[in-house]
Each structure stands twice: as C-alpha cells, then as structure tokens.
C-alpha cells in the first residue's frame, strides 16, 4: 500500500523573480505577474529554493533547514506546507507534474 502522494512544486511558468533583502526580510517582485511581495527569512528561503529547482515539502524542509541552520522537524514541515499553500494561492508556484 502506498503512502500519501507527495506534491512537488515549482515556480509558476512565466514567473521571473527580482529580489532584494534588507536584514531579515525580502522584497520579491514577480516580473511575470507584476506583483511585489514582502517575505520573512523563511518564506524567502523556501521561494529561493523553488526558484533553483522543484521540490516537495519534505525535500524543501531538508534544504531550508540546511540553509538556515534550523531543525528539520515536523514543525518546520508544517510551516513550509502552509507557505506552499500561500504561494500557490498567490500564483507564485504550480504543482510540478513532470
């Protein structure tokens, strides 16, 4: 019997991100949509990781935990899953069907 299907995510087609960071906050502009977003350190790192390559929540957790020196625990996974839902709603990311 297989476990729940893991959804991999990627940056939305047509997205082109411009970044600026001041202290622990990012401002990121999506040239594709024209939207500009304010992200905290964690959200910014998640989106940067997805900009580099697609990943599911567990894979992102490992990569983000390593980048930010955080424990890769269930709390972080849940936080990242929430961020992915938010990014999906904002049109920043899409499921990676490939």
């Amino acid at each position: 019997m297989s476990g729940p299907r893991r959804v991999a995510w990627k940056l939305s087609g047509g997205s082109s991100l411009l970044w600026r960071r001041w202290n622990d906050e990012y401002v990121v502009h999506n040239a594709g949509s024209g939207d500009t977003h304010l992200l905290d350190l964690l959200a910014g790192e998640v989106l940067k990781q997805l900009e580099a390559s697609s990943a599911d929540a567990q894979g992102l957790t490992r990569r983000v935990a390593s980048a930010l020196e955080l424990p890769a625990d269930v709390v972080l996974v849940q936080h990242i899953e929430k961020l992915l839902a938010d990014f999906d709603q904002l049109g920043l990311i899409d499921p990676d069907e490939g």
Partner: protein
Amino acid sequence: MTRLKTTIPSVVDSLALLYADFPLESPDGFADFHVRLTTPMGMRRWWRPQALFFFDDQSPFEPLPLRVAVPFLEWSLNWCVSHHAHQYLIIHAGAAERGGRALLLPAPPGSGKSTLCAALAHRGWRLLSDELVLVRPQDGRVTPLPRPVSLKERSIQVIRDYLPEATIGPATTDTRKGTVALVRPPRDAVARALESAAPAWIIFPSYQPQTRAQLEPLPKARAFLRIAESCFNYSLHGARGFELLAHLIDICDSYEFSYSDLDRAITLFDSIASA
C-alpha cells in the same frame, strides 16, 4: 510646461495670485500639457453654472460647479501629471529639500502631509512638491513640481496662524474634499524648479492630536512596500520600477512619524537634516 486657456474669472484671479512667480512662456512654445477650463455651452453657462476641463481637447471628467473651478483646475493638473508623466516614477507624496537632499513624505489624505509641506516650505526647506513626487529613473533624483500647496478643512486655519506671511488663496467650501484653499509656493522654490535633489529620507507622517513629535525607524523592506503602495505607476515601470524603488530604499533612511505640533516637527526634521 502647461498651456492653459481659461476665461473663468475666479481661475484667472487665482493664477495671478498663486502662480505669480512662474515664468510665462511664448504661446507658440512647446508644452507638455494642453488644457482648458471653460464653462459649457448652453444653459449650464448661466443656470447652475459649471466648469469643464479639457485635456488635449478631450474632457476626461464630468463638469463641476463653477464655484469650485479653482480647486478643480489643481486636481485636473494633478491628474495630467499622474496619468501622463510616466517618464518618471510618480509617488503620491510631498517633498522638500535642504542642502541638496530631499525629504519624501508619502501619505494618504488626512495624514497632515500638505500641512507639513506648507510649514517646511516657509521654514528653511525648499518645496519640491505637495502632492506628486517625480523620481527620475536614470539617476533616482527628484524633479521638482513646486505648485501651490493644497490645504483642507482645519489645516487651512492652522497654516494661517502658523504662517501669517504665507499667501493663501480664498477658501472654497463644499468640495468633494471639504473646504480647500491653496498656498502660494515660495518664490525660491519656483525659481529653482529645474534643480533636482537627491532623496535622503522617506518619512511616513501621521498627524495625531496631543502626541509628541516622534520618529520611529521603519524596516527597509516594509518601507519599500509602503512607498510602492503610494506610487501611481509602479506597475507600469515593471522591473525598472522595482529596481528604482529598491535604490531609493537603499539610499534613504525611512521612518514613521507622528506629530501634533508643527514647531516640534520642523525642529526634528532640521535635526535629521543636520546630522
């Protein structure tokens, strides 16, 4: 440069009072905007008379009562700039200059921005603009637009009391913005209208009765979002607009500012200018 045609007496008088220091160009010379403020033909010329604004022979607005023709012209000129001067990044803000450095005051209506601008303009700062800050994409400098400062409601008497030397036009009541009056820009501001300034401070003002004048540093990322929200054409400029605003945030100190007393506000601004 604006070519304006009008025969409405109140507007002619207002121009003579508030724009007295502006140079008059040749009627055949180049103009950025060609505008007219007239009374409509027909019955509305005499019965409940109205004023009608034309931009390049198009009328973008419904007519307004003739008695509000003076502020109508100012609002229409603001519209001309905010909708057509897209060679600049346009921020809904006041601005003043001291020592070559510009203080930007992005703020929604009711924040006290214009009251502050009027006060600063007469207390050692050069008025750059009351309503629209024009930022040049090529170098991030502010191009002045030193037109009359528009005051509303209580701020009219505040400035009459605070600046008895200022020239303030007659008040127009019952406009869509309440009672409004215009303050003539200082002669020096008009004379130096071609002299740009480098942005140095972004201050988000908030008039709060009985509060001590207080500057609170604003994190830069948050200042970016706040000022982007105050831009008329940030989206139009796309990636270039993002880079330009980011540059502004990089080079400016950003603050939240609350105040209730103009003297204390100006003292605080003077102190950051001399720091």
